[in-house]
C-alpha cells in the first residue's frame, strides 16, 4: 500500500519533470513580463494606486473605455446574429455542403487583419465599387461614408468576429438532437414555434459562449479601429499604445492593460459560472 503510493508519487514526479521545462519557459516568457506590466502600473511615475484612480477621475480614460465596451457589444450582437444564421444553415445542410461552408467560414482566418482592413477601405471608400454603384444607380447623390468612422470599425470587426461565432455556435448546435424539433412539429407546433420553444432554448449555452468569446476578443482590437476609424474611434488597445509609444505615460498604459486583462478574466469567470466552458469549446 505504502509502496504503491510512493510509486504513484514518483510517477507523478516524473511527469512533473517532463512538464517542468515548458512551465519554466512559460514563467520566464509570459508571467515575468506580465508581472512587470502589473508592477509598472502601480509604480510609474510613483508608487501607489493613482493610475487606477484615473479610471474614476479621467474623462479621457472613461470615454475610451465606454467606446470600447459599446463597440464590442454592438460587434457581439451582429456577429451572433449573422453567425447564428450561418451555423443554423450549416447544421441543416448536407455533409458535402457543410464542408464547403466550413471552408468558406475559415478562409478569412488566413488573411491578416491588416490586409482585410485595407480591403474594406478599398471596397467601401468614397471611390470604391460599392459607392460608385450606388451613385451610378442614382440611389444616393453623394457617396455614403462607410469607412473612416464608427460604421467602418463595426463592419471590419463584425467581419473578423463572425467566424468565431459560427464555429462556437455550430459546435453547440451539432450536439442538439434534431429529433426534438421533429417531435415538436408532430405534436402540432408550427415551424416557428418549434424553433422558438425547442431549438432556440437549447442553443442558449452556445449563444452565451460565443457571445462571451466574441466580446472578449473585441475588447482588444487595435489595427481595425486604427485604420477604419479615421482617427476618430479610440478604443482601449490603441489608447494603451499611445501611452506606451508616444506620451510615455507607462503607468497609465500598463494600468489600462491590467484593467483590460482583469475585465477579460472576469468575463471568463462569469461564463464558467453559467456553463461548462470546457465542453463548449470542445475540450
Amino acid at each position, binding site marked *: 500500500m505504502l509502496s504503491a503510493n510512493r510509486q504513484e508519487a514518483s510517477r507523478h514526479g516524473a511527469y512533473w519533470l517532463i512538464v517542468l521545462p515548458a512551465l519554466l519557459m512559460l514563467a520566464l516568457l509570459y508571467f515575468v513580463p506580465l508581472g512587470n506590466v502589473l508592477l509598472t502600473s502601480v509604480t510609474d511615475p510613483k508608487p501607489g494606486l493613482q493610475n487606477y484612480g484615473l479610471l474614476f477621475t479621467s474623462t*479621457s480614460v472613461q470615454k*475610451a473605455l465606454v*467606446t470600447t465596451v459599446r463597440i464590442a457589444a454592438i460587434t457581439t450582437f451582429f456577429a451572433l446574429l449573422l453567425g447564428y444564421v450561418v451555423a443554423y444553415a450549416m447544421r441543416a445542410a448536407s455533409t458535402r455542403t457543410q464542408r464547403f461552408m466550413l471552408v468558406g467560414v475559415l478562409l478569412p482566418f488566413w488573411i491578416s487583419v491588416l490586409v482585410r482592413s485595407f480591403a474594406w477601405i478599398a471596397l467601401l471608400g468614397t471611390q470604391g465599387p460599392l459607392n460608385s454603384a450606388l451613385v451610378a444607380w442614382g440611389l444616393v447623390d453623394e457617396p455614403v461614408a462607410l469607412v*473612416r468612422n464608427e460604421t467602418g470599425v463595426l463592419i471590419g470587426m463584425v467581419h473578423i468576429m463572425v467566424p468565431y461565432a459560427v464555429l462556437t455556435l455550430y459546435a453547440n448546435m451539432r450536439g442538439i438532437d434534431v429529433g426534438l424539433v421533429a417531435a415538436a412539429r408532430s405534436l402540432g407546433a408550427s415551424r416557428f414555434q418549434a424553433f422558438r420553444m425547442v431549438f432556440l432554448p437549447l442553443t442558449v449555452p452556445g449563444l452565451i459562449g460565443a457571445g462571451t468569446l466574441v466580446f472578449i476578443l473585441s475588447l482588444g482590437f487595435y489595427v481595425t479601429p486604427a*485604420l477604419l476609424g479615421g482617427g476618430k*474611434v479610440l478604443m482601449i488597445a490603441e489608447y494603451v499604445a499611445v501611452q506606451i*509609444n*508616444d506620451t*510615455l505615460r507607462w503607468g497609465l498604459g500598463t494600468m489600462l492593460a491590467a484593467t483590460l486583462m482583469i475585465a477579460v478574466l472576469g468575463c471568463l469567470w462569469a461564463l464558467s459560472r453559467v456553463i461548462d466552458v470546457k465542453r463548449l469549446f470542445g475540450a
Partner: protein
Amino acid sequence: MSDTRDRRDEIQQFVERTEGKVYPRRVFMGMAAAIGLAPVAARLTPAMADAKELVIVNWGGDAVKGMQRSWVDPYLKKYPDRKAVIDGTGPSTSRIRMMVDSKKVAWDVMDRNLHTALEIGPEGMLEPIDYSIVNKSKVRPEHAVEWGIGNYIYAMVLTYNTKKWGGMVPQNWADVWDVKKFPGKRAFRREPDGQLEAALMADGVPYDKIYPIDMKRALDGLKKIKEHSIFYTVIADGQNAFRNGEVHLGLLLNTRAWPLKQDTKGLYDWTWNQGISWGACWMVPKGATGGRAIWDFINVALEPEGQAELLKTNGYGPINPEATKLLDAEWNKVNPGAPENYAKMLPGGIAWYAKNATKARQDLIDALAG
C-alpha cells in the same frame, strides 16, 4: 517624425532582418533591446563583436538607401578605416527610453526632430551635442539646440486636388476650413504638431501669435472640421487616402506630397504657403559609445553636397542653406529649405512642443475621439 508601430510589426521586422544574415553585434543588440529581449539572448547570435561601428538609426524604407548614399558613404570615404551602419527600425521615444533605462545603449545617432530632442534631453535620455566639434554655423540658428542639431527640413503642407473644384484650388488653411467653397473630404494627421497651427491659421491667427498655442481655440477649430475629415495615424495611410481619391485636400508631409504629385501626374499639388516647417535632427542617446565618430559623422552629414543629394533622392529639405546654391530652380521648387519657400512657412514652435507635446497630443486625441 514618429510612427506608432505595432509590437508585432517590430517582431516581424526583427525576424526578417535577422533571418539568414549575419548582423553586426551592436545592431543586433539594438534590435533585441528595442523589442524587449533580454541581452542574454543576443549572445546566441552569430554576429561578430564590433564596438567601433557607428550605428545610425532612422525610420527605414527609402531613408536607409538615401542616407547611406548621401551621408554614410561620404563619411566612410573621408574616414576609410571606420565602419558605420544604418538601422532602419525607428528611434521611437519608447525604444530610446527602454534602451537608456537598461543601460545597454547600442545606438549612436538617431534621426528624430528638434522638439523631441528638447523634450526628452532634459529628462536624461540624451547626450548634449558637442559643439566644440560639431559646426553649428552650417545651419540656421533655430536648428541647433543643446540636445540636437538639425539634419534636414520637412514641412507639413496644404495638399490639394487640382481638378476637383473647376480650376479653383485652396490657397490657405481658411480655404481648407471652408467646406462650402471646397466641398470634399479633408485629411489631417492625428498628431498635434501641424494640425493645431493649421487650425489657428484658419481662424486668422498671424504667424507671430501662434505660439504659445491657445489649445481651446485650436481644438475647437479641429472639432469644427472633424465631420469632414479623416485623421491618419500612419503617414503612408494618409498619402494613400489622397492617391486613391478618398480625400481631396488637407495636410501632408512635403516628403509625401512630392511623390503623390508625381504618382498622379499632377492631379495633386501642394503649396508652401502657410506650411509648417520642422527641423528633423540628430540626437544621441545617453550613454552612446560611438565617441568622436558621432560628431565627425554629423559634420559630414551637414555638408551641402550630401544635403542637396538627399533632396533629389528622398525629398528631404537641406537644412544647410548653402545646399540651395547647388540645386537648380526646378529642384528648389520642391525644396522646403530654399529661402523663398522657407520664408512662406511658419517655423514649427519647438520650444512650445518640448514643454507641451504630451498634453497636447492627449488633448487632441480626446477632442477627435467620440
